[in-house]
């Protein structure tokens, strides 16, 4: 099943070089965020172990939900 992954880079290589390697590794690139050294991409669960071998990648993790968790006893 295809999922969205957040790839954090170590900063040791240009982000576009890592993005190209990631794409070759099977990650469908969704966003390259050069200001913060992060790539967002789509791939199956096997992509994580593959991506960890790509030079310049320091972490890969699933994109997690985030939102406004309203106070249980309140409103905002």
């Amino acid at each position, binding site marked *: 099943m295809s999922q*969205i992954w*957040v790839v*954090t*880079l170590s900063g040791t290589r240009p982000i*576009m070089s890592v*993005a*190209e390697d*990631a*794409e070759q590794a099977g990650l*469908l*690139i*969704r*966003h*390259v*965020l*050069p*200001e*913060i*050294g*992060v790539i*967002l991409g789509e791939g199956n669960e096997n992509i994580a172990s593959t991506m960890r071998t790509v030079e310049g990648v*320091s*972490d890969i*993790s699933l*994109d*997690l*939900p*985030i*939102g*406004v*968790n*309203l*106070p*249980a*006893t*309140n*409103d*905002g």
Partner: protein
Amino acid sequence: MAGRRLTSTPDDLYRDALARGSESSKSGRYLVTFKLGAVDAGVRMLRDKYGLVVASAGDFQASAVVLEGLATANALILSEIGVVIVEGEAFEEHRVSSASLYEPDSPVSSIDEEYFAFGRSNHAEYLRGFGRAASTIATDLAEAVDASEVLTDSPQVTWGLAACGVPNSQFSGQGIRVAMLDSGLDFNHPDFVGHAIQFNSFVGQPPQDVAGHGTHTTGTACGPLVSTIGLPRYGIAGSATIFAGKVLNDSLVSVGGSILVGINWAIANGCEIISISASGPPQVQPPFTQAGATALSRGLLVIAAAGNQSQRPLRVAPTGNPANSPTIMSVAALDQSLGVAPFSNGGKVEIAAPGVNVLSAFPRPTLSRVLSGTSQATPHVAGIAALYAEADPQLRGTALWSQLQASVSKLPLSAADVGAGLVQAPQ
């Protein structure tokens, strides 16, 4: 797959998503956002390099797109906001999502999947009626606030701004860029008309705020010094430039990736302060830590809500991400007696601010609401950070972080609950 075409109605798209068996929150179409001023170059690229047939909303009278008029196109450019909607099949067949689109000279800013906008199910829970009292608050803001007192709004100013010493500050955020990463903004709210605002959406929906959360938080951080609709002063950095980045959809839901895209956008646009009134699970996320570190190194400060899952005194929930990253300033919420709010998460907390019964702007026709949450506390800190940033150009990034903590009003509470204390504005 008729549902993924430009001519599809929302019902067509939803039926098609269900038929695909994929995540039904996605329409199957894509949104390509161009950089500012790069619309013409972007359209040329999609046409010449990828062979897309791009129609323009501007070709229709008053930009009111008629679906039947798009039968021969597989992409639609919305020039006013620099976004192209691309049919799903065309997007995939032409491999529009290649890394080359992100080369530095590319006109493309981002590529997003289009999401459905479902109606909010928690609207009634989210809203709260007016609770403002008419009594006045203590006006001698130079003195420490008596924590046994219940602070209320006065006709002149909200209790939160008064508690933070905002009315006596000579600063208003002039020349400072504040990124509000939230659910967008009601751009035509009377209190924001004429305000310097840049905007972008990272969730596949228009940046206009529907949920109201973004308008409320932006109102606190950057609302006017004098309300045009007769409200007490509720805005802190009324002269700051607002960068309204929509990272929460109209149901107030997002994913970490959208927040990261928003942070990237704010950094690229030279914002000094980024305010995030959203939170996720308590696992520290490396990309948020890196984003916060990058921001600090570039002279930006990322400020985020600790989260609202606590049920004090029975249970104190840990700070959620992104606020739990060590490079991001975490904000707790205080009640009107300057005690920690019962819902406010704890553990990794740097500073506290008013977060209960906070009056601020709300999308038309309502115009104002009273809301509670660490979401409301966070923009108090962001707005006051903008005042410090205006007061001293050296106060950026880590220096600004330190200044905010050094100038608090101390509280007789645990640092795990309120951090250094109650944020205070520069005088």
